[in-house]
């Protein structure tokens, strides 16, 4: 995640323009555009939606779009957040294959270590703990991501050592 853009004074107009430039202004670009903004900022601010709508709403081509339609999409997908998350995001796989090979104990260790419940962000905004379903690396379960880094074959004992890297 780009720390410079993550500061308060990002320019949403410019961000949306960049995304449109890259993905186009057709209907099938909506999800890629939302993804790009979410990736850059860590969440999708509501001010981005009317901005996106301006570009994709093309009446002469019969494409009508409302802000609510974009909100509906943005609130649907699990990878998106509509509110800012912590500086580091832990995505923990809670699906059955990881669960039965020890995921149960590992998530407990993470919760104890950070003092967070699933879905919470720490008071110092350092950590968010997000539960996710399978991320497709089940053969090395239990598995979690910290930001874009993947950790597999995790044991409760390894948790504090892994998290320490991000302090």
């Amino acid at each position, binding site marked *: 995640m780009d720390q410079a853009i993550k500061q308060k004074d990002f320019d949403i107009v410019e961000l949306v323009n960049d995304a449109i430039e890259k993905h186009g202004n057709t*209907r*099938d*670009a*909506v*999800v*890629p555009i*939302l*993804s790009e903004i*979410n990736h850059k900022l860590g969440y999708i601010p509501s001010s981005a939606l009317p901005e996106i709508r301006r570009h*994709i709403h093309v009446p002469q081509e019969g494409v009508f*779009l409302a802000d609510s*339609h974009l909100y*509906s*999409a943005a609130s*649907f*997908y*699990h*990878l*998106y957040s509509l509110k800012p998350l912590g500086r580091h995001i832990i995505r923990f796989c*809670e*699906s*059955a*294959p990881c*669960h*039965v*090979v020890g995921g*149960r104990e590992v998530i407990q260790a993470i919760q104890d270590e950070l003092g967070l419940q699933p879905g919470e962000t720490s008071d110092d905004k350092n950590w968010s703990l997000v539960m*996710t*379903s*399978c*991320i*497709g*690396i*089940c*053969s*090395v*379960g239990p598995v979690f991501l910290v930001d*874009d880094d993947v950790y597999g074959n995790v044991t409760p004992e390894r948790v504090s050592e892994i998290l320490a890297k991000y302090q």
Partner: protein
Amino acid sequence: MKIIRSMVLVSVDEASLEHGAEKVFHAFLEEIEEFGLSDQIAVSTIRDVGVHEDVPVVIVYPDAAVYAPVRVEDVHTIVEEHLVKGNIVPSMLTMMRGLTPEVAWTRERRGALPVQKRIVLERAGIVNPASIEDYILYDGFQGLGKALTQMKPSEVIAEVEKSGLQGRGGAGFPTGRKWSFVSSTPGDIKYVICNADESEPGTFKDRLIIEGDPFSIIEAMTIAGYAVGAHEGYIYIRGEYPVAYRRIEHAIHQAEEHGMLGNNIFDSGFSFHIHPHAGAGAYICGEETALIESLEGKRGMPRARPPYPTTYGLFGKPTLVNNVETLANIPAIIRNGGVWYREVGSPKSTGTKVYTIMGNVNFTGVIEVPMGITLREVIDIYGKGMKNGKKLKLVQTGGSSGTIVPANLQDTPMDFDSFRNAGVSLGSGALLICNEDTCVVDLAKVILRFFRNECCGKCTPCRIGTLRLYEIMSDISEGKGSISDIDEMLKISEAMSEVSNCGLGQTAPTALLDVLKYFREEVEAHITDHVCPVGVCPITAHVPELLPVP
């Protein structure tokens, strides 16, 4: 840890027994013991290998060498040469019909075990996925070249139909037939979509195919476009697979540069373009109509069907939606012909299947084998046995929406038909192998939580049903269940299976129903005795205050 590296099977049908199979069996046991190999080599029996002359037959795995007829005096040579030194003994191999010497896989599947056979993953791990030259060196684009220069679109479809290929995305729909539906729907604009959403827990075969061999998907989609009359293709890749996305993106550029994709491919006059598209994390977007809605920039909620995508798909146009693994079979089918493909697998389920193996076994990962092998074989041979010598309790097949198979059904051959007859689903090919430390209540709870989270919310039976089932199972795991809960869960499940709008709601209760069918006592123990027999559930801590006063 005990890892069986080899397995010896002795045929013990009537005829074999008459010819001393029992003595041969014991001779193997003794010889293997003599060489101190009892820990590494298992000796077992096989009932009927389909031939009754020249018996007994002895099959040695994983080489799948078939020796026959084997006499007690031959045993020493086989053990010393083959099992100790690793040399197959050619003079003792047999050339029986239906049993080839190298591969004991028989079409009738009389208990013989296939070796891994790779069609889909043939190149994965061998070629550089970023190099089109590598791909071309390994037969790449031959199928496309043949299709575009020597075949009419109808002939391409006929070849796919002949192969007997069935969709690998879960439902097993005949691929050739689907192609012909799209092809025969009139329209100038049609689409081909490669479904690479793959969000079924435990499934990562499509990721490995794309990451290992991205060009095969491009080749396949272009062949499909030619066959059905489409000029645009989309690859919908789940958002959690950034590496796969980058590989595909790179492969598309290279293919365009080399004239294998884009305008006027091979100067044939046929043009085809492919757009990679990343999802954003929603299991339901793997359902084909939800995928289409999502591609159109909306919430990924399934449409009511009919109309099917083959007639009314992306942007209202006829659309072919195929799974990654399905498509990955196509180049080889066109290259070698449908008849060649039919030779692999079982008569009604042709070809190979890619399985992902997970859970409490020594080896986890991916295998590609002909259709029709059994769970026992998967666990013993490919999974290299149960981890820490624990006992097998159950296998969940086909991902979270799949079935639960108790240990005593592990000999059912895995192909579409046998599985369907046994009430087992092959689904996405995920095999979650669970040992005796797995609590079925805990497992069902985790599976139901997944569906509660992933239900798209469009229709009531699924929206309320997934929530209620999860809540009830949660209560049971905490010792707060009552015996009437079981009936309620059965009722809810029935309603969900019958009236949900899409496959998610219809299959969400599958694992739960199997748990109630095969492990009801264990569930009841949680309810009536307030114990978790395996000691996994948080039940004990809560019991005192939760027990109702009698």
